[in-house]
């Protein structure tokens, strides 16, 4: 695949290394002369100097035959417009944009720049995963498909432990798809009895998290009881 990476910062440089390792053809475009000279010592002809928001720079990098454009500069406007031009003018099939300021996400969405990746959002998601107080972890959010997969850890005070899956009144638009117990996963059936420490995965329509939290969470008044 021929991939153009815009921005030779830490993200762009390392990305280019990985892609080259995987035998892709890669051109990195960097607009800072000093940075370009540094990166060029390693990437040689795979890096080119110029401002990728200018069309002729993209054309010189061969955007007409690119299979993918990845914009990872430190400037959100640049990333948005480079991807917009790549897709709408040069008909590049796949684009990926980096979001530096998560508050700009609605602008990326408005211009139809998808997928877009925000490090802040990724860290927040990791935080949700690592900090159990959050109770519920978003594993996957399929916006187009209108589905989410979440993970819940059943604590001592969960109101579903000791109960059969078949007896749970699962909210409409949700389904238990697997249980992780002592490091092993299995698909539950109606007779599965949930235990403390189980991690359950559920697939659901967006917006049903609160109903599930209610069902699987601590019994009212249970609080942080240690039991």
């Amino acid at each position, binding site marked *: 695949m021929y991939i153009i990476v815009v921005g030779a910062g830490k993200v762009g440089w390392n990305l280019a290394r990985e892609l080259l390792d995987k035998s892709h053809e890669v051109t990195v475009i960097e607009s800072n002369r000093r940075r370009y000279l540094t990166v060029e010592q390693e990437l040689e002809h795979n890096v080119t100097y110029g401002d990728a*928001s*200018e*069309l*002729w720079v993209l054309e010189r990098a061969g955007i007409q035959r690119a299979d993918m454009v990845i914009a990872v500069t430190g*400037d*959100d*406007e*640049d990333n*948005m*417009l480079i991807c917009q*031009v790549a897709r*709408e*003018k040069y008909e590049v099939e796949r684009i990926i944009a980096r979001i530096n300021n998560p*508050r*700009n996400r*609605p*602008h990326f969405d*408005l*211009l139809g720049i998808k997928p877009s990746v925000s490090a802040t959002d990724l860290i927040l998601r990791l935080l949700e995963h690592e900090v159990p107080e959050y109770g519920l972890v978003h594993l996957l959010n399929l916006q187009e498909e209108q589905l989410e997969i979440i993970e819940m850890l059943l604590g001592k005070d969960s109101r579903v432990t000791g109960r059969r899956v078949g007896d749970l009144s699962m909210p409409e638009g949700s389904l238990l798809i697997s249980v992780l117990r002592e490091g092993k996963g299995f698909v539950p059936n109606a007779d599965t009895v949930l235990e403390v420490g189980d991690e359950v995965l559920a697939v659901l329509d967006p917006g049903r998290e609160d109903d599930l939290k209610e069902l699987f969470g601590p019994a009212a008044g249970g609080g942080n009881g240690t039991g």
Partner: protein
Amino acid sequence: MLSEGHEVSCLDEDPESHARLEVGLDKGWEDLGGRFTVGTGLETDALLAAGIEGADAFIAATNGDNTNIVIAQIAQRRYEVPTVIARILDPLRAEWYRHQGLHTICPTRVAIDMLESAVREGAPRGVA
């Protein structure tokens, strides 16, 4: 446009720019009915504070082409401002975005045309 009786609202990230607005005016900018908001065009809050929702026209004329193109599209698509104009210095991109339905003004293009016609108006060497 303020002096013609239009309501004009300026958004700028530099609070000092307010002083520039008042150069040559005998009254304060606000006293004449003008508005001034400090913020950047990518901040939704700043755009709303500047009154984008009721605007009949929106001009994106910051010193950055990319910023202007993005904000102009936001004004057009999200806030449905009827007249949106973007200042784009890069002639190639001004051209392309014009084809995409954005009203663009390219000062570089205008300057090139003026310089060119000034050169053509001059007489060549040896012609008295």
